[in-house]
């Protein structure tokens, strides 16, 4: 079964690569555009020196963790961006009459490989931030950083899933839901505490992005030592469960389109 999905990916990759120059330019474009947002951050923090006691290197860790998570989430969740079309053109009917996972059939043929540009940029910035952050790196802390990225990717993936699921219920444009994904990416450039108590609570208990960024950063910088802070990214993974349940509910409300 897994082989089928790998076949999907390779077929998709092949068709995206069919126009090599266009593919390459999009990747490069993504890479460069991503830098503009990093420069924006760089100069702001340069001027003010530190944000809420976080040094420039530490803020950059936040930035790159969120960017990396976002780009991984979007790379895998590319199918969600075109989900309304999948529902509208009958592709979803085809997915449902095959004995495979609905989610994987949606995702694998639509992975957006041009996101590699964004991904590379985020890795590069992370590489710069790690030595500059003033964090005394240990094996455990490196593992925590990886966990932050992993959980962050899952949370962004879940957010893409969540906003796609709304397509089951309405045919209207749902661009306001982009605030969940693109909005969160912009917000996430700074440690989430800078937005105040209310926003931080929202990002802790409703959309757990602070659990993959702010709280573990406190642990990394040794402002907090409770293991709870180190485990918070793992707790954030739970966010996927209600999103998946909502997606299942959406399938049961699927209307299909006229033949």
């Amino acid at each position, binding site marked *: 079964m897994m082989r089928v999905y790998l076949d999907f990916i390779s077929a998709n990759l092949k068709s995206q690569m069919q126009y090599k120059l266009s593919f390459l330019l999009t990747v490069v474009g993504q890479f460069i555009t991503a830098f503009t947002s990093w420069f924006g951050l760089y100069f702001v923090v340069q001027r003010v020196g530190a944000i809420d006691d976080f040094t420039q290197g530490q803020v950059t860790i936040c930035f790159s963790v969120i960017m990396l998570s976002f780009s991984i989430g979007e790379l895998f969740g590319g199918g969600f961006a075109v989900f309304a079309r999948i529902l509208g053109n*009958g592709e979803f*009917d085809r997915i449902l*009459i*095959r*004995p495979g996972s609905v989610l994987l059939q949606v995702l694998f043929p639509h992975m957006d490989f041009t996101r590699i540009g964004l991904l590379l940029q985020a890795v590069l910035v992370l590489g710069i931030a790690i030595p500059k952050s003033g964090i005394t790196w240990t094996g455990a802390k490196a593992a925590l950083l990886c966990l932050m990225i992993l959980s962050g990717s899952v949370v962004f993936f879940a957010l893409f899933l969540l906003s796609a699921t709304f397509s089951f219920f309405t045919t209207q444009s749902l661009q306001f839901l982009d605030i969940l994904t693109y909005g969160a990416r912009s917000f996430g450039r700074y440690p989430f505490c800078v937005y105040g108590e209310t926003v931080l609570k929202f990002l802790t208990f409703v959309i757990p992005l602070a659990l993959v960024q702010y709280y573990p950063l406190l642990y990394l910088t040794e402002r907090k030592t409770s293991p709870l802070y180190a485990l918070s990214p793992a707790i954030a993974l739970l966010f996927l469960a209600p999103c998946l349940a909502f997606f299942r509910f959406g*399938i049961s409300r699927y*209307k*299909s389109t*006229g*033949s």
Partner: protein
Amino acid sequence: MIECEGLSKTYRVARREAGFGNAVKALFSREYETIQALRDVSFSVRDGEIVGYIGPNGAGKSTTIKTMCGILTPDSGKCVINGRVPWRDRKKHVREIGVVFGQRSQLWWDIPVAESFRLLRDMYKVEPAVYRRNLEELTELLGLREILKTPVRNLSLGQRMRCEIAASLLHDPRILFLDEPTIGLDAVSKLNVRRFVKKRNKEHGTTVILTTHDMQDIEALTGRILLIGKGRLLLDGNLEELKKHISPKKTLHIKYQGKTPRLFEGIVLLEEKMDDTEAMEGQMKLSLDPGGLSVSAAIEALAEQTNLLDVSVTDITAEEMVAALYKEYEI
């Protein structure tokens, strides 16, 4: 074995009047229209049956098929197919069914047919030996050998449909759903598809559920039809019986030479045409009710008056029957 009982499904569709003003209004308040796609639909199909499902556009044919395929979840009612509820046990259920939607391709657009087949093989986990046998058989019967290496997007409609049918049968399904399988096909392709479906049903005992607007599909393939209109199942019966129910009348088509025959009680003139005035050759289309006047008596009476060159007797066609049924049930 398919058993459906009391299936109902409604859709809510947003609607607005045309025009910019109304578009703005729709931003704030929307009017919804509830469409009852299925109302209390019940029927059952035995293993190995071929059932034709007919009804005008928008009657609920596709909704029923999609419910049986596990694509749609009905609001209420039961449907059990081979002991499973399609939408609840979707993955196991779809392994045992094959589906062809005439209007939509089930194959991957950009890749060659053979590769699509291989993807399906992996997806349905078809045993290599079984796959080879099925592929060989289907390639032979549907004449696919030349087109296996062609990408789907380059196929003609008829070629594509043959590939779709092959694709739906690679995993030996017990039930085959065909939603308008002959739509847009040329005469030869239509005949091929019909012949193949019939053969498959006979040799493999595959149950076939078929929707179509082409009554010749129904006539060629199935004895039993289900008529659906406005979401309700209106009739479930045998094609011949339905024809009789609608109209027992026979149509008599004669060609004659000589005197124009005089008509008599029990026979009604539908059309008349003179082919050759000099040679006195003409044609007549007559209608009679065999309850009042037997066909043989009518022909005898006509033959006494003139020289009959040709006589043909027909029932109403399936097309006429469907039109009459739609009229009778006001759908």
